[in-house]
C-alpha cells in the first residue's frame, strides 16, 4: 500500500470510529476520486473525502471534525471524536443482555401471567418486568394492509396484456383474456417514543414494544425517540435479540431521561421525515415543557399527513384519568385514538388496533 492509500485508510478508520459508515468500498472510491484531483490541495482532498465517505447530513459535522483533527496534525484525535459522537447511557437501564434476562425471570404460571398482563410496568420488580419484556418480544401485530401500486395475476381485475399475449403466442390465438389486480402491502407505522425523565419508567418497555413491531414488519415500521432531540433508531432496533437491539438504541439516544420539547421535536420530524399515509403512534405523557400552542400546530400538520394518529399515554390506564396536561390538551383535537400504554394488555390492545386501523 502506498503512502496516500495508507493515509486515507487511516482517515476512514477515524471516521468509522466517529460513527460515519466509511467502509472499504467507500475508501476505494475515495482513492479513485483522488486519481483525478490534485492531492497537494487540502480543499480537494476535503471534498473528495466528503463526497465519497459521507452518506447523510448527520455525517457532515463529524466529517468536518475528523478532517480537522486528522489532517491538522492530530492523528490520535479519532478517539476523542468517538467520545463526542457516541454518548453512552449513564444509567444502567436497558443494558442487560439476552442470557442474563432469561436467568433473572422465573417461568410464570398461567394465573401469574394473567395478573402481570394488566399490571403497570412502572411498579414492577426487575424479575416481573423481565417476564413482561419476554412476552412483549413474542408480540406480533397483524398489521392493516393498504393497496399497493403493484399488480398480481387474478381472476378479476383489469386486463393483463403481458400475460394475455404470452398465452396467445403459446396457443396461437387469443383464447382468453388474463387479468390482474393490485397487491396489498402492510401499512407503515411510525412510532415516536418519548424518552424524557417523566416517561422513564415506561421508556424501556415502549422501546421493546417498538422492537417487536420492527421485527414483525421490518420494512413498514419506523421508530424515533423524542425528548430534547429527535433520534432515528429503526436501524438499531433491527437486531434480532431484544437486549442487543435496546443497547444499540440507547447508545445513540443522546437525551435519555432529559426534558421534553414535543412541539419542537415534532416540527423537526415533519421537516426532515414524513408520515404520509402512515399510522403515527406517539407514546408520551404529554408533559410539554415548551409552548403548547406550538405542539398543537405541529399535531395539526401531523394529522393532515398521517393516515391515523394514535396517542399512547401510560397514565391513560388509571381510572379517572383526564387529559389535563397542557401538551395533552393542545394535542387532543388532532388525535384519532387515545390509548393506554402501561401494561402488556394495553400493548396487546394497541397491536390489535394497528391491525384494524
Amino acid at each position, binding site marked *: 500500500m502506498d503512502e496516500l492509500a495508507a493515509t486515507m485508510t487511516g482517515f476512514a478508520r477515524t471516521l468509522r470510529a466517529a460513527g460515519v*459508515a466509511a*467502509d472499504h*468500498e*467507500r475508501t476505494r*472510491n475515495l482513492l*479513485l*476520486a483522488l486519481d*483525478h*484531483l490534485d492531492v497537494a490541495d487540502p*480543499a*480537494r482532498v476535503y*471534498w*473528495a473525502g*466528503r*463526497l*465519497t465517505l*459521507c*452518506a*447523510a*447530513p448527520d455525517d*457532515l459535522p463529524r466529517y468536518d471534525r475528523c478532517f480537522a483533527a486528522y489532517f491538522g496534525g492530530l492523528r490520535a484525535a479519532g478517539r476523542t471524536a468517538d467520545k463526542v459522537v457516541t454518548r453512552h447511557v449513564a444509567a444502567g437501564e436497558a443494558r442487560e443482555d439476552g442470557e442474563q434476562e432469561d436467568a433473572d425471570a422465573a417461568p410464570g404460571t398461567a394465573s401469574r401471567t394473567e395478573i402481570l398482563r394488566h399490571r403497570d410496568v412502572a411498579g414492577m420488580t426487575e424479575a416481573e418486568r423481565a417476564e413482561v419484556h419476554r412476552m412483549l418480544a413474542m408480540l406480533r401485530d397483524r398489521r392493516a394492509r393498504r393497496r*399497493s*401500486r*403493484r399488480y398480481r395475476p387474478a381472476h378479476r381485475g383489469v386486463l393483463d*396484456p*403481458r400475460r*394475455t*399475449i404470452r398465452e*396467445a*403466442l*403459446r396457443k*396461437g*390465438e*387469443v383464447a382468453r383474456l388474463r387479468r390482474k389486480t393490485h397487491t396489498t402491502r402492510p401499512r407503515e407505522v411510525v412510532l415516536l417514543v418519548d424518552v424524557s425523565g417523566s416517561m422513564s419508567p415506561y421508556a424501556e418497555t415502549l422501546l421493546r414494544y417498538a422492537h417487536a413491531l420492527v421485527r414483525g414488519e421490518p*420494512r413498514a415500521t419506523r421508530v424515533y425517540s423524542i425528548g430534547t432531540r429527535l433520534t*432515528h433508531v429503526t436501524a438499531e432496533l433491527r437486531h434480532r435479540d431484544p437486549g442487543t437491539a435496546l443497547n444499540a438504541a440507547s447508545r445513540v439516544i443522546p437525551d435519555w431521561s432529559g426534558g421534553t420539547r414535543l412541539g419542537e421535536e415534532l*416540527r423537526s420530524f*415533519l*421537516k*426532515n*421525515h*414524513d408520515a*404520509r399515509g402512515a399510522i403515527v403512534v406517539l407514546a408520551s405523557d404529554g408533559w410539554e415543557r415548551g409552548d403548547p400552542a406550538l405542539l398543537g*400546530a405541529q399535531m395539526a*400538520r401531523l394529522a393532515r399527513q398521517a393516515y391515523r394518529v394514535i396517542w399512547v399515554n401510560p397514565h391513560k390506564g388509571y381510572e379517572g384519568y383526564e387529559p389535563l396536561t397542557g401538551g395533552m390538551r393542545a394535542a387532543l383535537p388532532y388525535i384519532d385514538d387515545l390509548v393506554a400504554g402501561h401494561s402488556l394488555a394495553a400493548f396487546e390492545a394497541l397491536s390489535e388496533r394497528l391491525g384494524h386501523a
Partner: protein
Amino acid sequence: MLRRTIRAADIESPEKLIELLDRYSYLADEGLATAAFLALRMGRPLFLEGEAGVGKTELAKTLAELLKAPLIRLQCYEGLDAAQALYDWDFARQLLHLKAAEAAGVTDVARLESEIYDRRFLIARPLLKAVETQPSVLLVDEIDRADDEFEAFLLEVLSDFTISIPELGTIKAATPPVVVVTSNRTREVHDALKRRCLYHWLEHPGFDREVAILLRRLPSCTETLAVQVAGAAERLRAAELIKPPGVAETLDWTEALLTLGARELDPGLAAATLGAALKYREDVEAVLANGLLRHG
C-alpha cells in the same frame, strides 16, 4: 455565439466546470463543482440531497445543456415499477401483429415469437433510453418517493449500465450516461445505492451567491432589488417556517416583483407577491405578523 461541443473528458478541473456552468447561468460553488467534476470523470452517479429548491434538478438540466446531451428524466413515485422505468412491450401492436399473422395463415410459433419480440415493439422507458442514448444525462428525480423495490433495480442498472431483456438480449451502454439522483430526504435511501454514488449535500446559497444568481438569471433585476430580496430570503430561512424558500422560490418571487414593475422591495408589493416564495398559509401569516419583510 458558436459553441464547441464539450465532452466530459475535456473538463480538466473543477474550476473549469465552474466556469462552464457559469456560462449557462448556473453558479456552482467549489463543493458542488468538485462533485459534478468527479461524477463526470469517474462515471459515477451523483447523489444530490438537500431541501427543495436548492438547485438539484437545475444542475442536471444545466449539465445536459453544457454537454449538448438530451436530458432524460425519471420522476419517481411510490410503486414505480420496471414497466414504467425500464421498458415495456407495446402490447396493442403485438396483438395486431399476431392477428395479422393469424389472418395470413402463419402457424410457425417460433417465427411468430421472434417477430413479436422485436426491438420495434419495445417501448424504451427512461432508464433504457439513457442506456441507449449517448451521450445523455439521466435525472432520477426525488428517489425518496419511490419504494425499496425500485431502489433495488435502479442499483442494478447503475452498477454496470446494462439492461437485460429476456426476450431480446442484453443492452449495454458503451459509455455510461451522466446520472444525477436527487432526494429531498423524506425517507432514508438504502446505503447500497448511496455507496455507488458520490454523495453531496446541497445547502441554500449564501447571501452573496444568491444576489449573483438573481442578477444573472433575471437581467432586468436591479442590484438594489436583488440585495433586498436575498436579504429577505435569508431572514425567512432563519425564521422557523414550515417550508423556507429555496433559490427556485426567490427567483419566482423576484420575477413576480419585476412583473409588477418593482425596482425595490416595497413592503406592500412584497406582501402581495409573497405567495411566490412561501407555500403555506401558516408561513405567510407568521412572516407578515413578525414584520420579516421590512429590511434594514
